[in-house]
């Protein structure tokens, strides 16, 4: 049985209890379910990331799991879930244990459960009542507020200035590579990219730094005979991006690509934010480990509304590798959701505002006649884009003489970035979704006479 005393004992510190107390509101949990007569309870809590955090607790031993990147164990979400159960057991509805909870349960079998003491003297200064106490707000000092605003403005201006200087450094570095020879760059690309990336970090151009740092692996992933071409394309995009940013440093889409991503609430509060409510299908998820140690979680959604112009959405989250394995969303899941898109001339990245089960199953819309048109259109707006989702019509996975695989139809063929399982080469693909980076296609999922295929 979950008690407040047990939660108090389990919490790592008072600050965690304080943070958890702010989440003990069922309204912040679009999902709050438990297994009838069973041991699992679970929920989804919207945090600052694109996807809500998934939290599960085993009631028998207070084992827990949360998908948030917090390094505190248990995190505030797990504590809050237990807290809600302790306070009001009836606020959880009955539900069927989802796959991600069962997978977590399977992985933790045999590991020790949490040792919970309930002795009041053993709380280490942690106190739930104190955490729940409402803080008295200090009266607002207008002068202090004005001073803080001015300081924030100055910091922002300084950051912009540093970023602009950083892009000029990047241009100079690119010029130097052209002058001394790209063969020298390609010979030592990992180290060279790392060095310039470090300078960009110093210039507060963290997103640009990450892009340059990862550029080496993108180039090296290609066959050697075309690496120089990709190097030219990547460097050319950096030049365009740097120039565009200097011309308009306050543009949110450019600022996001150079500096940092705006906070979730900023996107939600902006009056011009594109919001799309539709039935979406999760078509695939990629977890990519970056050189900086973070894991980038790309969750691709397909809009099943046949008439919508917004065909795709990307939910993008980052978390440290130490946060452990995350349970990916089930490819093929359909749900109704409102998405808010980050401002962009060609919106793609989005936030999940609200989600609920789809009333009925939807089908994929037809692929466009000219499958590359969306790519060209996106590129017109974002000539520095690294990859664009494509909706492909009927095709087949084929092989060239060197064993490399291609997605091909009658008219065209796109080289595949990753080999696909042999069996998929025996299937006609009615439709496919993939990410095209100008050189290779990363297949994400497909529809065939054999049903749905997932490639990532």
């Amino acid at each position, binding site marked *: 049985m979950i008690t407040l005393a047990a939660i108090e004992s389990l919490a790592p510190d008072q600050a965690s209890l304080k943070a958890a107390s702010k989440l003990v509101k069922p309204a912040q949990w679009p999902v709050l379910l438990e297994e009838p007569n069973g041991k699992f309870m679970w929920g989804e809590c919207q945090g600052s990331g694109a996807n809500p955090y998934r939290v599960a607790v085993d009631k028998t031993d207070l084992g827990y799991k949360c998908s948030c990147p917090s390094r505190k164990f248990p995190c505030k979400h797990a504590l809050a879930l237990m807290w809600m159960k302790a306070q009001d057991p009836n606020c959880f509805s009955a539900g069927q244990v989802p796959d991600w909870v*069962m997978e977590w*349960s399977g992985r933790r079998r045999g590991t020790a459960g949490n040792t919970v003491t309930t002795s009041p003297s053993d709380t280490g200064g942690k106190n739930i009542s104190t955490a729940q106490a409402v803080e008295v707000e200090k009266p607002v000092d207008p002068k202090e507020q004005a001073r803080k605003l001015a300081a924030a403005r100055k910091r922002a201006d300084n950051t912009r200035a540093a970023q602009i200087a950083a892009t000029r450094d990047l241009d100079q570095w690119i010029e130097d590579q052209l002058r001394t020879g790209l063969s020298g760059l390609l010979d030592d690309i990992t180290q060279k990219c790392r060095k310039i990336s470090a300078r960009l970090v110093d210039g507060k151009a963290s997103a640009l730094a990450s892009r340059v740092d990862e550029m080496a692996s993108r180039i090296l992933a290609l066959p050697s005979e075309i690496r120089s071409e990709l190097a030219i*394309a990547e460097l050319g995009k950096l030049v365009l991006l740097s120039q565009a940013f200097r011309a308009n440093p306050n543009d949110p889409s450019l600022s996001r690509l150079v500096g940092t991503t705006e906070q979730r609430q900023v996107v939600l509060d902006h009056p011009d934010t594109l919001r799309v409510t539709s039935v979406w299908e999760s078509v695939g998820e990629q977890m990519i480990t970056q050189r900086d140690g973070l894991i980038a979680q790309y969750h691709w959604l397909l809009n099943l509304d046949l008439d919508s112009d917004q065909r795709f959405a990307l939910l993008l989250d980052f978390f440290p590798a130490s946060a452990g394995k995350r349970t990916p969303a089930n490819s093929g899941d359909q749900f109704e959701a409102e998405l808010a898109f980050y401002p962009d001339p060609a919106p793609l990245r989005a936030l999940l505002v609200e989600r609920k089960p789809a009333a009925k199953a939807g089908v994929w819309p037809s692929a466009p006649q000219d499958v590359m048109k969306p790519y060209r259109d996106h*590129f017109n707006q974002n000539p520095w884009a690294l990859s664009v989702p494509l909706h492909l019509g009927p095709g087949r996975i084929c092989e060239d003489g060197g064993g490399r695989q291609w997605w091909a139809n009658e008219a065209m063929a796109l080289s595949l970035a990753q080999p696909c399982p042999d069996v998929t*080469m*025996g299937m006609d693909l009615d439709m496919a979704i993939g990410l095209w980076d100008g050189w290779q296609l990363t297949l994400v999922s497909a529809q065939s006479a054999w*049903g749905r*295929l997932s490639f990532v």
Partner: protein
Amino acid sequence: MSEPMSELEDHLSRMRQSWMMGGSAGAAAPKDWNALAANVLVPELALLAIAGQALELCFINKPAGLERRSDLPRPDLTVVPDALRARFRRTIEPLSAEATLNLIRLMANRGYIAHPSDWMPGQNADVPDVYTPLQAWLAKNSVTQNHTSLTADNWDDWYPSARIKALGQLRHTDPSLARQIITERAGSEPADKREAIIRVLGINLGEADIDYLTSLLGDRSTKVKSVAKGFLARLKKSGDGTNEDAKELANFMELSKAGFLSRKHMLKLKPLKNKTQKHRLGELFDSVSLYDLAQALSLTEENLIDHIDIKNSELMSGLSAMIGQTGSDAVVTAFLARKEVCEALKISDICLMSDRLDKDKRREFLPWVLSKPSDFFARLVTFMKDDLGSITFADFSRSPSFKSFMAEMNRAANKEYPPFDSQIANLGLILNAEAAAEILALCEQAGHSTADPKFSVLTFNTQLKK
């Protein structure tokens, strides 16, 4: 872009060379590009940006000589629905290869095959026939598609497991042709494949096979020799010319009166003196044929099985193995036709003979097998093989194993108890969907969380409706 594509490619190639070596690419660039770049602070960077865009956008060509594989053969059964595929993948993830194959057999009985992206059979896996074309495709042997029947000439065109299946079918319809093909081609196969091929002769085994089987007694593989010897024993030909082992085994036994007043004689085991004798007895049961033992006892095979002391479990187990391995089809049938024998046999004894029973016969014996106590149901899984997922709750609840299962279920609630994990996994393979649902409900009532992975097979069973 005003340049024709090949000229553009030429410009880009020369620009790339300039930059690779170091220096300006202005001389190699198209004139209109230079005109555009002249308006920019650093013209070289402008040329780089334009060239990069051109390289990425302009050249998406289809290479010549792309090959497509043949179509993946579409089996007759239904592919597992998309909604169940994630659960299937999760269910098989922790299973052994054998347990996975058993689940595959259960699915086939329900009319389903695994999606090829989720699971494909290994080359030598003993899978339901419906997977044979997929095995062949996987071995990249698309030529198989073109052959309607196996011959000695097209032997090499067939995938090994498909060959075995084809030989088996041929033994039913034309056993001598099958034997002829085997005679011509088996000798060139490695030992493990050769053994599987020779075993096919067990179908419709007859006098015409004796000469070939006798020739196999000189095979370089002991396994092949053992199979040949067993088949010859079934045909009442011991083949190896010596009966010393049979005589030794006979000496372990005696024919004595069943009772003081009885006229009937019974074949009994003499009391064993030590462990060495016990060990030797086991060896002899494994190596002596039923025919030779009968000869040594001056009995016919039929007389021998008529006079077994069925109360002696050691004798029953030893003879069950012997009958299963070397008894003729008629003897196996006669042995199992006796009610008192069936009642005396343990489930392990029955499993020793299960290979001698075809699908219909196994189905016939299933209620009787179910009447035997079974600790972990693993032997039931082995026996049922082609009929997995068919036992009803009514039949299971009446069986002696049900009560012990219920006791284990209560003992295992809320704690780790590996024996129960094995039981529940095997039950998931033998019960029908409704029975599986009943068991899940009982486990929930007993306090188990059926979301626990140990219930995966059982839960998957309930969702796999025919």
